[in-house]
């Protein structure tokens, strides 16, 4: 039986960790927090056997700072947390943005605000994760809905983190992370993962923040190599020297945004189930995408014409895919488990306020029936 499925009962957290390991993650520093702890535990058990280092850090700030340190040495590094831990990490996320240091952070959401509901799922951190930098620099964010997607998006996160030298977030949640499901491991996709482009210029001529093109990251030299490395989170010139707002330093800030924006289309990952002559488009991400997909299939079986679009890339916003899928639809229904429809606000300028319908939930997973009710009324 060549194509027989090889099923394992696995959680999203477990497969997210496996995806990171298969992407070449060599360093992990973690701090326990429900519902992300299984990622930490898996890395503590698996990394030593896969030529890596996993550490128990005393807090989330230390965890991410240690990851950045390891990344400066050239190792792919990751940590995992939930909303409360993410809040502590934001200072260091900004440092990684500014120093163009690749690092991956898995944020497994729980119900907030504050310590909130540790064992309850939610999709309330989507904008907190994205708009965490002063200046609102685009932070790539990927959101799995299944264990399989957790595995694949962990690899995508490492790819883009390395490719563009930026922190990248994998935004999961309690229900995606902790629910076990049968996964055909023979069908899990291994994705290519980029390496930082090494400096190959003349010895002694290395400028740590010099980019051949502002849309690409600078070339990389690891600490301990032949070239002198200068890193700083303060406004700097190409050599990494502190500068006030000289044009060179301001251009480097513009570059931080431009390098992400220029690759937005390449970064866009979506899964679509388009319906011919669709009247409605249902857009969702993360855990709610499962209910939304189920709702669309039921509606179409009953004779409706509803297209479904799951966004696996949340940021940069996959505008083209959304715009295309929404063409001809009278309403665009955005399904997400938070009070106000946080991500839906990102769709407003793309599909227009008038077409936008929100399906939101709090405290429990949104059910297919709730979505169907709204779709039928739309």
């Amino acid at each position, binding site marked *: 039986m060549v194509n027989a499925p090889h099923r394992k009962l696995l959680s999203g957290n477990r497969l997210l960790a496996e995806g990171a390991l298969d992407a070449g993650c060599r360093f992990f520093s973690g701090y326990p927090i429900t519902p992300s702890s299984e990622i930490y535990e898996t890395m503590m058990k698996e990394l*030593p056997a896969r030529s890596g280092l996993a550490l128990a850090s005393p807090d989330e700030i*230390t965890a991410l700072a240690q990851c950045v340190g*390891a990344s400066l040495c050239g190792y792919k590094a990751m940590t995992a947390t939930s909303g409360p831990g993410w809040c502590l990490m934001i200072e260091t996320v900004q440092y990684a943005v500014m120093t163009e240091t690749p690092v991956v952070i898995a944020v497994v959401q729980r119900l907030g605000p504050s310590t909130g509901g540790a064992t309850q799922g939610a999709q309330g951190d989507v904008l907190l994760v994205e708009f965490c930098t002063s200046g609102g620099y685009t932070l790539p964010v990927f959101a799995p809905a299944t264990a399989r997607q957790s595995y694949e998006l962990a690899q995508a996160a490492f790819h883009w983190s390395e490719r563009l030298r930026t922190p990248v977030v994998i935004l999961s949640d309690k229900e995606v992370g902790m629910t076990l499901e*049968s996964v055909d491991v023979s069908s899990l996709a291994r994705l290519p993962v980029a390496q930082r482009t090494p400096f190959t210029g003349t010895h002694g001529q290395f400028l740590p923040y010099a980019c051949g093109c502002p849309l690409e990251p600078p070339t990389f030299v690891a*600490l301990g190599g032949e070239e002198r*490395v200068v890193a700083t989170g303060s406004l700097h010139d190409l050599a990494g020297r502190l500068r006030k707002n000289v044009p060179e330093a301001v251009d480097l800030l513009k570059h931080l945004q431009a390098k992400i924006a220029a690759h937005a289309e390449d970064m866009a990952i979506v899964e679509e189930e388009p319906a011919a002559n669709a009247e409605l488009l249902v857009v969702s991400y993360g855990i709610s995408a499962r209910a939304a997909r189920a709702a669309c299939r039921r509606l179409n079986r009953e004779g409706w014409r509803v297209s479904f679009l799951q966004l696996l890339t949340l940021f940069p916003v996959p505008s083209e895919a959304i715009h295309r899928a929404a063409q001809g639809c009278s309403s665009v229904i955005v399904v997400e488990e938070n009070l106000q429809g946080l991500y839906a606000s990102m769709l407003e300028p793309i599909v227009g306020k008038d077409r936008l319908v929100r399906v939101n939930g709090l405290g429990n*997973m949104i059910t297919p029936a709730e979505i169907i009710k709204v779709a039928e009324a739309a």
Partner: protein
Amino acid sequence: MSYTYITPNATLPYCKGCGHGQILRALGEALTRLQLPPQEIVIVTDIGCVGLADAQFETPNTVHTTHGRSPAFAAGIALADGTLGEGRLKPIVLIGDGGAMIGLNHLVNAALLNPNMTVLVHNNFLFGMTGGQNSAFSPTGFVTSTTPTGNATPPLDLARLLIASRAPFVARKLASDRDLAETIARAIAHPGFALVEVLELCTAYATRWNPLTGAQLKNIAEAAGYELGILREEPRPTFAATYHQQAASVPAPPITTSDFTSALDRPMGLVLAGTAGERVQTAASLLASAGMRAGLQATQKNDNPVTQGTGFSISEIILSPEEILFTGIEKPNALLIVSDEGARELERNRVFADAVKTTLVLADDQIALPDMPCRVFRLPFRRVVGPKLAATAAVLAWLNIARPIPLEAFWAASEARYGSESNSEKAKLLSFLENCSFPDACGKVWDTAGGVLISCQGNGSAR
């Protein structure tokens, strides 16, 4: 040829007489003495006047970080290089008293882990860059911009705290000490975590507001009860030296082979409710694995309070011949309830209110249940097999009635997980199943599909 480190004849960015300049010169002298390859040195600076030091280094790497976090970044560098690389890098952290207080847990953590790194704490008793505010290190009576009548809070003894944190090398020096460079060199040469706290005066604020001169640093130290000199030098194995001894891999869950079949032609959702510590989730995962052995797909969504070993434990299991999208259960095909805590949680979640007439309920015969519109079977799970096996017995009882998959698939899943260890439990459970009567009289209300009980109708209890 010898290495140089600090830009020769550099004009330091510090006020005249500032201790930062003295420390930087002593560090330069220490590095010159040690002659480590500059590319192996990483100067990791914190925020404050101390963070202006980066620009003074000509050859070593420099990493300018965030306030108080420099020891954590440096530890990441030293730990990664020590275990994954060649272990040649030596991060040297330059941090002030303000940063040391913010990053106290980073310092304690690094001291405990013992990576190969050095920390130079520039303790000038206040925040210099921002205007001379009081710090946790300000001496009692110290006048600062935020303690105009004198600081009333005693200062932290950082060196003693780091000794308590098992730092293998701790020293406290005065910036004016002639042998400062020698002590710094000794700290850098120490294999592992080393910290030197250097007492110094901020000439912009401290000496302006307090009757101080450099010669009085010693008096401040005495008044604060600070010991001076190398306070501890007891090498112990670094983190990298001990790490690989701990390395051990835990095998991934096994691939589940499909060695049974199922006649199930639609998704089936089951809620198993019990008490934490009574193997509810274990029973659920055996059921999910058994379903997979019979060629079905499965999900298992667990719920528990924040605590791990007390309170309710609930698992929702879906078995389906096709892909499972929504992992919640809108209309349960069956509820299996094996403890009062499980029953109460279902009630809180309004699961009973949502239960439909066709839901089959198997409940322990000693627990309290509200009236339900569906068929409830009461069985003596807890009395006969005990609380630890009650959930497993309920799953088996349900399999015996509904037959979505063969019982043998469950035993195969159990054996795959526990081996023959579970033999005595299996005997107990088999005996329970044989002695349980499932009234055939109810057969006529079964709604079956392909031989599988999907739902049942009618209400009332049966034993």
